[in-house]
């Protein structure tokens, strides 16, 4: 190093830092692409070279071609892809919507009113540890194999996180905020409405996000165990006909739809919880 330390001008400094940042983003983007490309190439290699037999793994292009043809082709499971997707979405939205509409207000009320809490809590605690999937046999007996039965199971999966999070959220309402309401002479219900619910929104949305994930995951199980339509049914049929391309395509469609739904929920959260952003 030379005796006098180089003093950079402001512009040079800004440029230096920005260049460094750009280089890092570029590098990580390249690595990400390399990772995904590497995976696809490995998959393609395994499928084409015959290291794994064709009835166990189909190559990437084959899956993609099936995705296109499945829009019009009913074989082998009796319905085209959009029908399956619609059937799944319908069930998921019914069950999830019901869970949000019932679970969240219930959580709020339980978190705010002690009497209601002590009445509802035991029932909830009895039902909570039972995994939603194990309700399937009972719902089949009660409701048969239709939209209602599946929606009921999805409802169970989404209900628990909705309730727990809105409950915890409203329980964490800051005492000071409640006191502000009290000193303004507001009734307990007004404070609930104007202070409790808004301050629980962050947690509530966290619950909704968990709930939609649970709902989507449970839906697949419900469709495999008790259904004659939907994406879960489609991959199960693919399994029984030994159509590995159909199974892989179905899994990918399920995954992508799940991502799209979560993204929509995030969008909604940003709209509703705009004040959280600085």
């Amino acid at each position, binding site marked *: 190093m030379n005796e006098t*330390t*180089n*003093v*950079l001008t*402001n512009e040079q*400094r*800004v440029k230096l*830092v*920005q260049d460094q940042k750009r280089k890092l983003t570029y590098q990580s983007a390249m690595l990400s692409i390399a990772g995904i490309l590497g995976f696809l190439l490995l998959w393609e290699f395994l499928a084409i070279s015959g290291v794994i037999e064709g009835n166990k793994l189909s190559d990437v292009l084959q899956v993609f071609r099936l995705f296109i043809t499945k829009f019009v082709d009913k074989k082998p499971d009796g319905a085209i892809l959009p029908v399956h997707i619609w059937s799944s979405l319908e069930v998921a939205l019914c069950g999830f919507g019901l869970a949000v509409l019932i679970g969240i207000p219930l959580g709020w009320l339980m978190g705010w009113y002690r009497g209601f809490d002590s009445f509802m809590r035991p029932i909830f605690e009895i039902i909570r540890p039972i995994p939603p999937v194990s309700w399937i046999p009972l719902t089949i007996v009660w409701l048969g194999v239709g939209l209602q039965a599946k929606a009921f199971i999805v409802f169970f999966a989404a209900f628990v996180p909705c309730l727990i999070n809105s409950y915890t959220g409203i329980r964490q309402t800051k005492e000071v905020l409640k006191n502000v309401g009290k000193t303004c002479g507001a009734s307990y219900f007004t404070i609930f409405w104007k202070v409790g619910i808004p301050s629980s929104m962050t947690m509530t949305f966290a619950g909704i996000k968990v709930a939609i994930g649970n709902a989507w995951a449970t839906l697949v199980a419900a469709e495999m165990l008790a259904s004659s339509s939907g994406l879960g049914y489609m991959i199960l049929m693919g399994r029984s006909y030994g159509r590995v391309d159909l199974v892989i395509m179905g899994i990918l469609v399920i995954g992508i739809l799940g991502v799209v739904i979560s993204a929509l929920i995030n969008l909604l959260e940003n709209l509703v919880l705009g004040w959280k952003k600085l």
Partner: protein
Amino acid sequence: MDEKKKVILRLENICQSYVVQNGVKDAVENVSFEIYDNEFLVILGPGHCGKTVLMNMIAGLEKPVGGRIFLDGEEIHGSDRRIGMVFQSMNLMPWRTVMGNVEFGLELAGVKKAERRAVAQKYIDLVGLQGFENSYPHELSGGMKQRVGIARAYTNNPQILLMDEPFGALDAQTRYAMEEEVLRIWGQEKRTIIFVTNNIEEAVFLADRIVLLSNCPATVKQIYDLNGLPKPRNMTDPEFLRIRSEVSANTDLAL
């Protein structure tokens, strides 16, 4: 007197600035001063004027954009074992007990267990925490936590101890007590201490010398020599109050 004044740390034209959304924000600008061996130097400055940034650069937590730091005559880059630090936010590891936190530095240095236990125990005793060796930080009060922080910094036997607003988070009562404590500890285990604060009274109470920094970007405004005022000092002593108001009149207001 002259032989005592051996320069141990020298800052030379230290500059630091950060790139923010629209351009550059300067935090520290051409700060130069010297610190003598075993002195209690207080860096006093308003609000967020770049005192912590200065400390972080001496400790090696960030790199200065310009300028150099000399320790014992040789330039240092980055952190150095001869410099210890007591943090403003205490930075105790919640998963370690008091003993675990105090011996952390020695553990990283690879000192054997029995030996580091002995050293750590010595400093736990020094800061008056005997009996709390197996407590976790969350079980301690603020003042006790900062005692752990001081003991931790001492165990590595640094030549220079940096204290970055160590009592900023404490309530006034505890703060007075801790100020006296830190002087007592310093009296027993002499080290060079660089103590950062925004509290004028605290500065006048503790310092051998005060380096007064200006508001952002930080520059050295004035250096006060308080060696004429014997310790322990009395906060209601007329001479104390005179210096205090003199420093006070010269201090920039934080925005």
